[in-house]
Each structure stands twice: as structure tokens, then as C-alpha cells.
């Protein structure tokens, strides 16, 4: 409507400009949005190369490779990374195993208590982390459990299970059950069918669940903070360091985690795009 008004009022050029703006405004806005989204990430990466003037790594001073070469020069940073990796590895493996079994039961079988189970899976996802952390803390306190590696691991498995269930479930819903029936018709028993047919087909979803749990675990601060006792994971290390001025090595590790994660995701995206292209051709 307004395009018509402009056309009548001014020369044709104006109308063309307006049409151009109207057509591309959403694109321009989206580009701005992505700049905003990626700006803090750029800051993290750039400041990993900074040689900070004092205690605080807030203002740009001079370029240096030192932080990358001496990434573990800060006391405690190396052990915190090792602990985070151990926890993330164990928690993602156990949570994905438990979650996959739950997903199989929920998608494959009709049984009493299915709706209740769905709610039980959904509840941890909709509970603020601080409540998850605080309630586990009260459990361990009241049972006089010693805080440390095991309490962190239990906490991480707990909040990862639901994510694993949801991820595997999404794949199972679109699963062609005829494939399994065919295997059974050909004489395979339930276990063989599961091993030879079901498992290979849901393997990508299991891998996705593993990666998701790993990512959530390695990033977790709140629940860990409540249940870590004297142990320090990488996010806890950052928290402690932030109070006295975080060293640039924190940015180095942050950048490294980012690059690894994005590379993995990019590989996944490229594979998907190739597959779609093949599907179209």
C-alpha cells in the first residue's frame, strides 16, 4: 500500500529503493542479529590473544601468543579441565545408556504409567538449575555424603538423562517398525533384532545424545557449584578466577572448546546438506 503512495508521489527511483528496502529489511535485520549473537564470542577469541595491562583482561593492550603457548600456566586450570573431561565423559555415557532404554520403552510400548513417566522426564528439564542443585545438596547433606567426584558425577547424570531421552525419542518416533518385523519373520529373536537392526538405525541419535550430554555436562556451573565440595571443575575455576580477575588463559580454553564444538557441528551440517542434495537428485 505504501509502495503505491511513494510511486505516485515521487520519481520511479524512490519506489525502487523502497521496494529494495522492503525486500531486504528482514535479511538486514537478521545479519544484525547474528552480529549481536556472535559479538561476545569474538570478544572471547580476541582477548585470548591479549597481553593484559594489569590483573584485569578487560582492555586491549598488545597481541601475544603467550596465553596459548602457556595455556596451563595458571595454577589449578589443568586439573580443573581434566576433572571436567572425566565427569563429562562418564556422565554422558551413563546418562545416554539410561536415557536410550527409557526412550525405547516410551516409544515402543503401551503400558500403565506412560504419561507419568513422560512427566517425570519432563520435570527436570523444567526445573531451574538452582533448585536441582539445592535439592541434591540437601539430600547429600542429610545423608552425610562426602562431597566430591561422585556427588558431581551423580548430579551430572541426573540432569543429562532427560536430554538423552528426548533426543533418542525424536529419532525413534520416525522409525519404520517393519524392518524389525522383517527380521523377526526371518527367525531372529528379540535380542538379535535389537542388536542387528534397531541399534544400527538409532546409532546416530545415540551419538547425538552422547554429544549433547557431554556439552551440557562440561558447561554446567550451577548444579556443580552446589555439589562439588572441594573439587573444582573448569566452570568453577572460571567462577573463582572471575572474582580476582580472570586470566586470559580462561579465554584460551573457552576458544578451544568453542572451536572443537563448532567443528563437530559443522561436519554434521555438511554431511546433512550433502545427504539432502543426494536425496533431491
Amino acid at each position, binding site marked *: 500500500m505504501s509502495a503505491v503512495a511513494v510511486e505516485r508521489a515521487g520519481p520511479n527511483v524512490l519506489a525502487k529503493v523502497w521496494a529494495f528496502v522492503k525486500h531486504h529489511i*528482514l535479511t538486514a*535485520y*537478521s545479519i544484525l*542479529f547474528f552480529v549481536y*549473537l556472535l*559479538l*561476545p*564470542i569474538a*570478544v*572471547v577469541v580476541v*582477548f585470548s590473544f591479549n597481553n593484559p595491562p594489569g590483573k584485569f583482561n*578487560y*582492555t586491549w593492550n598488545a597481541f601475544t601468543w603467550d596465553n596459548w603457548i602457556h595455556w596451563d600456566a595458571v595454577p589449578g586450570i589443568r586439573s580443573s579441565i581434566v576433572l571436567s573431561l572425566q565427569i563429562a565423559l562418564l556422565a554422558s555415557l551413563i546418562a545416554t545408556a*539410561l536415557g536410550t*532404554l*527409557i526412550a525405547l*520403552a516410551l516409544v*515402543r*510400548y503401551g*503400558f500403565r504409567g506412560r504419561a507419568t*513417566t*513422560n512427566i*517425570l522426564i*519432563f520435570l527436570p528439564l*523444567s*526445573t*531451574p*538449575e*538452582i*533448585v536441582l542443585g*539445592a*535439592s*541434591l545438596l*540437601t539430600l547429600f547433606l*542429610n545423608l552425610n555424603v562426602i562431597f566430591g567426584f561422585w556427588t558431581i558425577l551423580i548430579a551430572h*547424570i*541426573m540432569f543429562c*538423562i532427560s536430554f538423552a531421552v*528426548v533426543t533418542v*525419542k*525424536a529419532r525413534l518416533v520416525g522409525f519404520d517398525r517393519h524392518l524389525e518385523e522383517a527380521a523377526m519373520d526371518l527367525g531372529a529373536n*528379540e535380542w538379535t533384532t535389537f542388536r542387528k537392526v534397531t541399534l544400527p538405525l538409532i546409532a546416530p541419535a545415540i551419538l547425538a545424545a552422547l554429544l549433547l550430554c557431554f*556439552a551440557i555436562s*562440561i*558447561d554446567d*556451573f550451577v548444579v556443580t*557449584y*552446589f555439589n562439588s565440595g572441594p573439587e573444582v571443575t*573448569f566452570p568453577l575455576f572460571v567462577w573463582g578466577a*572471575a572474582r580476582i580477575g580472570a586470566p586470559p588463559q*580462561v*579465554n584460551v*580454553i*573457552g576458544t578451544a*572448546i*568453542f572451536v572443537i564444538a*563448532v567443528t563437530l557441528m559443522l561436519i554434521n*551440517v555438511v554431511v546433512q*546438506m550433502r545427504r539432502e*542434495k543426494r536425496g533431491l537428485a
Partner: protein
Amino acid sequence: MNWFHRHRGLTPYLLLAPGVVFLAVFFLVPLGFLAYQSLESGNFDIGFSFTWSWSNYWDALHNYKAQFIRSLEYAGIATALALVISYPVAYWIAFRGGRWKNLLLLFIVAPFFVTYLIRTLAWETILSDNGFVVNTLQSLHVLGPSGRLLATSTAVVTGITYNFLPFMALPLYVSLEQIDERLIEAAEDLYASKLQAFLRVTFPLSLPGVVAGTLLTFIPAAGDFINAQLLGSTNNHMIGNVIQSKFLESTDYPAAAAMSFILMAGILVAVFLYARLVGTEQLTGTAA
């Protein structure tokens, strides 16, 4: 094998058992302990005893009214901002993304690949007193010469909005992507203007995404204390800061437990209302 055949109905329960037992013991039981603790009285040195001390709840509400209200306020503003900021982009990716959709979605979740605390510290750098943003705003006289952004509610809300943005953008994208474009074309064929077609066809069809995104953003935002701690001052502390310090610094467990429960109860009410609206299957489905 024979036993399995006779008790085929047991299979789902056997599959469920390990995970469900784990969640029961380390999620549900702890909530019970939290409820129990919230009704205790006493202190860390003399020990706590269970006395049905409901006053913990009234005291918490009374003494920390400001922090409760601030949590809801900050979370509410951040959720609304996230919705307004990310809706056009979700729309753009869903309808104009073409074969680049997956790559653009990767950009949306990119912040998640930087450790939460580190990306919040990055905002501390961006908003710092001698930073580019403050200097620009000062030269535009939006901020006074001694004006700052750090340690203000603006900084806290900015941080929360940024940190939970992907939780809003993703469900929005999913619901927009599922819309059959022929419906919008039909509306236009029937002489609806673009705006009318959007308001009466596209937007209503994207409502499940709006609701899911709102819940997924609001819930973690209301319980957050990291943004208030790193980007705000004590004047910007939210209920999460209070719970955290009562649990881990002043060991006032009953009060902290009562506050956690008030926060949890408020959120549960919202989720159950939503569950009644859309059904549990859809609720768990949208969380995917």
C-alpha cells in the same frame, strides 16, 4: 527366554527401571528432602529440627520480596526481549533459509559452545566502564560522563536475554518451519494483506513455538544468579543469589530451601497450566 515370553508385559518396565529409579532417587527424593528441610528450624551450629516451621516461607516472602519480584521482572523482560528480537530471525530462517537452514541454526546455537560463565564475562568486557559501548553512549549523551552500564539492571537484563536467546529462537523456528506455506498463499488469494495474513494465519500457527520458547527462556532466567553476580551490583540481586548465598555461605538451609520451593512452586504452576492447555505428549515433544 521362556520367562521373558510369559512376562512380555514386563519388558517396558525393565527398560525403564534403571533410569527411572535413578531419577526417582536423585531428583524426586531430593525434592522431598528440600521440602522437609524447608520446614525445619534451628541453625547450623545447634543443628536443625523438623518443627513444621511454615514461618520460613512467610519470612522468605517478607524479607526477600524485592528479590522475588526482581527475578520475575528481569526474567519477564528478558523473555519478552528475546521473543521480539528472535522472532523475525526465526521467520527469516524458516521461510528464506533454503538449503542454508542448518548452517544458520548452527549460528543460533553458537553461543552455547562458549562456556556459560565465559560468555557472561565477555559481556562484562563489552559493557565495561572504558569499553566501546559505554564510550559511544557517553559521546551521544545517552549516558552521563560518569555513567556506566556495569552494575545496573540494564546489564543484568542484557546478559540474561543473550544467554537464553537460543532457547527462544529454536522452538520459534521449529513451529514456523512446520507451517504449510500454501495456507499463507491461500490467505493472500482471499485478499488478506501481508500484515493480515501474518496476524491471522502465520502468527497463530507459530503459537506453540512462542509458548515453548517463553517457558524455556523464563524458567532458567527466573532462577539465574550468574548474570546478576557478574554484571550487576547487590542492588540487582535476584532470588537465585539469595538462595545461593544462604546455602553455601551463611548455611541457613531452611530459609534457602523455602525460597527454592517458592520459586519451584511458581514455575510448576505455570508448567501444569501449560500442560493442561496442550497435553503432556506435546509438552514433552516441544522440549525436543
